[in-house]
């Protein structure tokens, strides 16, 4: 049996549905997980717990086989095991895209990200983030997260700024990453992800 890439046991995040209803979840390598639910239900909070960006309020979290028990361990887990594509893709504005990619994915992996961006038609050589469109930024962050070779890729509305063609290319890339063994977790309102996902976590509001 494959050991999970992410395990949540009785986990409550700081905000949303899981605060009152602790969650158990296993995400195995190669799975494509879609987290859905109405606005304010805590999708992003859950994503932050899965991505070790915050410690769970309650319960136990393991990412890449490492128990996320402290902020220091969380830093290590994010660096070694997790790739991120957050909504409103953030880059270091005064660095070149190449330096951003190298810091995000690691210096050895940056060429791979550049190759992918070239195949997506996003020229980045010598460019700074301020000269990029929202869609280009989102694809750069996605390329960086994929090139990192992380065992878990956590994404929040990763295609919100993309046209249909670019969106299809990004979804395909996430599929390829999962096929290569990464667990890809997507939080999105967009039901287009349902066809892509192999695992669906739907968060609902608690009554009363």
């Amino acid at each position, binding site marked *: 049996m494959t050991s999970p890439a992410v395990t949540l046991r009785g986990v409550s995040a*700081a905000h949303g549905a899981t605060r009152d209803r602790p969650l158990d979840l296993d995400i195995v390598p190669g799975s494509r997980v879609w987290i859905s639910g109405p606005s304010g239900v805590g999708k992003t*909070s859950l994503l*932050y717990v899965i991505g070790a*960006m*915050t*410690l769970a309020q309650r319960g136990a979290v393991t990412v890449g086989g490492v128990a996320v028990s402290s*902020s*220091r361990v*969380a*830093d*290590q*887990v*994010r*660096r*070694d095991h*997790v790739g*991120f594509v*957050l*909504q*409103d893709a*953030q*880059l*270091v*504005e*005064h*660095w*070149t895209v190449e*330096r951003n990619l*190298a*810091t*995000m994915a690691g*210096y050895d992996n940056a060429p791979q990200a550049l190759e992918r961006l070239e195949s997506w038609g996003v020229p980045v050589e010598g460019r*700074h983030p301020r000269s990029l469109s929202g869609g280009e930024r989102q694809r750069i962050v996605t390329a960086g997260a994929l090139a990192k070779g992380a065992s878990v890729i956590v994404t929040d509305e990763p295609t919100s700024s993309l046209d249909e063609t670019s969106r299809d290319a990004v979804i395909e890339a996430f599929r390829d990453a999962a096929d290569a063994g990464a667990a890809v977790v997507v939080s999105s309102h967009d039901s287009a992800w349902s066809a892509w996902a192999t695992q669906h976590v739907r968060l609902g509001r608690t009554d009363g």
Partner: protein
Amino acid sequence: MAEHTLGNAWANVTGRRVASVTTVLVVASLMAAVTALLVPLRDVRDNQRAAYDRPEWQSVFLVEGIAGADQPMTPSDVKVLRETPGVTGVWPIGTTEADAAGSFVQLRSWVAALDVPIVVGRPPAAGACEAAVTRSVPGATVGAPLEVALPGGGSSVAGQVRPIVVGVVDQGYPLVSGPSALTTCPMPSTQAPEQLVVATDTGQLPDRYVGESLDAAAARSMDGSTSTGVMGLLALVLAVLSLVVVGSVARWSVRSRLGEFTTLRVWGRSRSDIIGMVGVEQALLALLAAPLGVALGTVLAWVLVRSGGESSMVDPAAGIAVALPSASTIGLAVGGFGIGLVVLTVAPVARALAPDVARLLRRRGE
């Protein structure tokens, strides 16, 4: 990791051009102001000492008299000294207190062996009745005669000398102090020489004579000059104010960069990674500010020490060499500002970077 920290820090310096240039200019200005106050306190005296560090002065002596004798030296004593082996020259210095335009002035014989530097005009010529004066002689003008009255007993006047003023003595020259006129005019014959200038080729003054080398006299004179404590207090106050300004700029800078730091935290960079990067970045900025700050500080110090008035050991016409900061002063100014900049910037970064990245993201408004 270290090379990436340095590379990222340098990318921050070059990428945030406006902020970097502003920081460099602010730090350089403050560094210049502090340097300008440190130089008079720490370096001017040494620079003057270096300017008057003349090896030949070790073998030329100012002789006051004969050991154990109560009387001034007689002409025969001088003759004996002249004939002493090792002595290559003896020049009597006539000295008398006199009155010029109602003010006290010391009239002294011009002796070429004293190597008096003239900063305006020329040295007085032998055989003529000319004088070089210190700047504190009242009413002296180069090219004009100086009316000097030689007092006799009581209120009587023993005589008058009218040398033409042909030069001005460097105010930093350590062997003449106070209002003085060094003249080639014949001195009143009644005045016995109070001192002799004795040149030797051995570097040793014969035992029976009392005196000291020009080198030792110059050192004693320069050691006796005092620097003002007000300057030190000003330097301290300015340094503290500078650090307050630098700290405020640093806090403002950190607030504007919270997004950047949050992004790095999301990518797995620890707080200490980011603090290290910012620390290196600030150290680089301090290093970039250093040449400008030190150069500007040297010029400011030069202006400051030249405007010290008649009591200053620096002549108003002195070259910039007199205000050059020593390596330790540069180290103090650059190191102080470097450490201050790093500490004052890193501290708010450390405070701003909460361990919880999600909290940082919410603060950023994501």
